[in-house]
């Protein structure tokens, strides 16, 4: 799963009294930081890309949630918003982009096409039926064709809550 991480050096934790408490506090700060600054990858495929840009624009302003910094290079991004139809010719580029992103990375599947192929599910020979079919673990699904900008903002909030509630596996 894309979200759980293993904390390096967490095996020494039990030796310190109250280790659990210290970790919990620092984990909250890390999760808050990861959630508060989700830098999306500029990755528009089709009609949903226009709604993603409108979300980034002044009226809906995704920057209020700290994720207004649209980085073009996958190296500096945290969340990949797959906005649009995934086609056969495009799928391995998407997979390569996902692999190029540094680790705590999340994926938002925006629009019905990214979730399940949408209205191009039947009779289409060149559409991949959703992001899962490409082999990318998706964290938040934003339904709609195209989803309204408020819906995408809600998706970002859901992702932030999901990050905040993740318990790092202390194993």
């Amino acid at each position, binding site marked *: 799963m894309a979200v759980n991480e293993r904390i390096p050096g967490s095996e020494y934790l039990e030796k310190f009294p109250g280790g659990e408490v210290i970790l919990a506090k620092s984990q909250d700060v890390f999760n808050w930081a990861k959630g508060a600054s989700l830098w999306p990858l500029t990755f528009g495929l089709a009609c949903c890309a226009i709604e993603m840009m409108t979300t980034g624009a002044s009226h809906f302003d995704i920057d209020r949630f700290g994720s207004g910094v649209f980085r073009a290079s996958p190296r500096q991004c945290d969340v990949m918003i797959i906005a649009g139809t995934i086609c*056969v*010719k495009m799928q391995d580029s998407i997979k390569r982009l996902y692999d190029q992103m540094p680790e705590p990375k999340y994926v938002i599947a925006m629009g019905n096409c990214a979730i399940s192929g949408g209205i191009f*599910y*039947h*009779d*289409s*020979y*060149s559409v991949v039926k959703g992001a899962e079919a490409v082999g990318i673990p998706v964290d938040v699904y934003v339904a709609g064709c195209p989803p309204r900008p408020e819906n995408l903002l809600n998706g970002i909030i859901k992702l932030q809550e999901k990050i905040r509630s993740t318990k790092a596996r202390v194993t």
Partner: protein
Amino acid sequence: METAIVSKSIQERFPDAIVETKPEWICLKKEIFTPVLQFLKTGHLAFINLHCITAVDRQGSVEVVYHLYSFEHKWMLTIKVILLDSDLTIDSLTSLWSAANWLEREVFDLFGVKFTGHPDLRRILNPDTWSEHPLRKDFKRDGFIPRPVR
């Protein structure tokens, strides 16, 4: 400006070029196809704009359809050529209009019609590794889910 006038002027120059003339379109023979279009473009009819090339799979033969437009006479002409499934080749029009380059590549990609003389005939929309031609009526491919018709 009627199709009849166009077919009459073609008839004068190329007597046996026309297979059939309909009010909407003219069907030409495949053999002497390029000289007729050369005349249409450079002649007094001035069809200088190749608007669109497409094809229709008639299960046994493929109809390649050309839409030419003349700005002077403000008239859209439709020209058809019937190709039997046995030899799906026709000579390319890239020498006359550069617009034909991409349009012919698309027809090749979706129908398998080979355009002789095309500078760079490869698939334009589908991945190059494919062998099937999707818009043929007998198109089968795994992962292609037809809609259950009620």
